[in-house]
């Protein structure tokens, strides 16, 4: 009986507490902080009229064309501004304390948020390629960061130790 209780308790404990791999927290936090930094820069430049946006210009790459296009505003909110709350939330969700909390709803929220962010990124890539016909390098860096966040968070969940 004692042996049976111990095994069942171990199994319960294992299913309840599955530690994330150690690499997950620093990578996701770093990506979130970089994303937040780029979003802050793009927001500042948006309200400064994109006059100082450091970006090479060619017929394909043109940050100002993208960030001043009609598609750069959704429901009256600049896309650059939309990135801010996303990355603020991702920084909060990827702090060491958040990873240690290991509560199911937070894990689910982290995964769902990055998936929603990725879908939005795919829409923005479509807009850049087919509506504006120009690529914004700063925006692309945010897109890549979101993709890497998605990959890291999904793998972190899959690699959770039991």
């Amino acid at each position: 009986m004692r042996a049976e209780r111990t095994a069942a308790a171990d199994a319960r404990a294992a299913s309840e507490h599955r530690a994330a791999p150690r690499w997950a927290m620093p990578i996701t936090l770093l990506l979130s902080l970089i994303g937040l930094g780029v979003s802050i820069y793009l927001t500042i430049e948006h309200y400064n009229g994109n006059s100082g946006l450091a970006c090479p210009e060619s017929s394909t790459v043109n940050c100002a064309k993208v960030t001043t296009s009609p598609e750069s505003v959704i429901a009256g909110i600049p896309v650059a501004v939309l990135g801010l709350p996303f990355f603020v939330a991702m920084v909060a969700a990827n702090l060491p304390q958040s990873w240690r909390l290991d509560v199911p709803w937070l894990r689910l929220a982290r995964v769902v948020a990055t998936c929603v962010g990725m879908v939005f990124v795919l829409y923005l890539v479509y807009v850049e390629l087919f509506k504006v016909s120009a690529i914004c390098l700063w925006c692309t860096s945010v897109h890549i960061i979101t993709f890497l966040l998605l990959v890291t968070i999904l793998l972190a969940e899959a690699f959770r130790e039991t």
Partner: protein
Amino acid sequence: MTGPRMPRAKAMRAEMKRREARRKQFMISGAVIGVVIIVVVVLVVVKVAGGGNGKSAAATAASSSVVSQITTVPASTLEKAGDGGTTKPNKVTGQPPLTANGKPELFYFGAEWCPFCAAQRWPMAVALSRFGTLSNLSQTHSAKNDGDIPTLSFHGSTYTSKYLTFTPIESQDVNHNTLDTPTAEQQKLVNTLDTPQFVGGDSAGSIPFITYGNQFASSGSSFNPSVLSGKSHDEIAKDIHNGSGDIGKNVNGAANVITATICQMTKNQPSNVCTAPAVQKIESSLGAG
């Protein structure tokens, strides 16, 4: 014997369940990442392949930076350009004055696919901005197989001025689909004036066709569109604003010619525009000063 084995078997089943769950999680994660990669690759391939049907991209609203740069070219920059060596419109005689809303009318007839129209719209926008406010401009390129020249489009644009009325017709979009349909009167105007008698034999019948209140008319562009080739809209707008390079010289020169021709229509109003030395010099060479 069976008592102690049961917990171990349960633990093994639990372990197998965990492994199965992890395998499923890997598969789901891999599928999500794979879908993202596939979507991006498909978007890029479709774009590189030219939209999948070889059609050129449709016009989009002009960026605020482009509009701002070309509608606020400093007078000193325009003055330096002179006529830029660009061609001048022909004088029209024997035709009734063209007016609309009680003001002389500048009528433009072009198409979005046309490379010469692509070139001509830049100086027109610069010149028109000296007499009024041009709004709701679009930006596009001429057709891919027609130079792919970066340009603006007057389709859907509005113009307010107390000196003249501007009536643009963009007859077709970049893929040769019908865009603006001219009225019977406008079509008659084109058929009558876009002829060797009024615009010269070399360009008669071509577009863009422009009549300046039926006092002057032109067909074709004032300068070679290849000057704009390979540049972005922002690069062109900056060069125009700063008067830099071949773009600054040609576009601002053509803008001065158009300005001088409009001054002929508006009886030299507004005076601050029409008394600019470069404009006056061109006006005198138009032969109607």
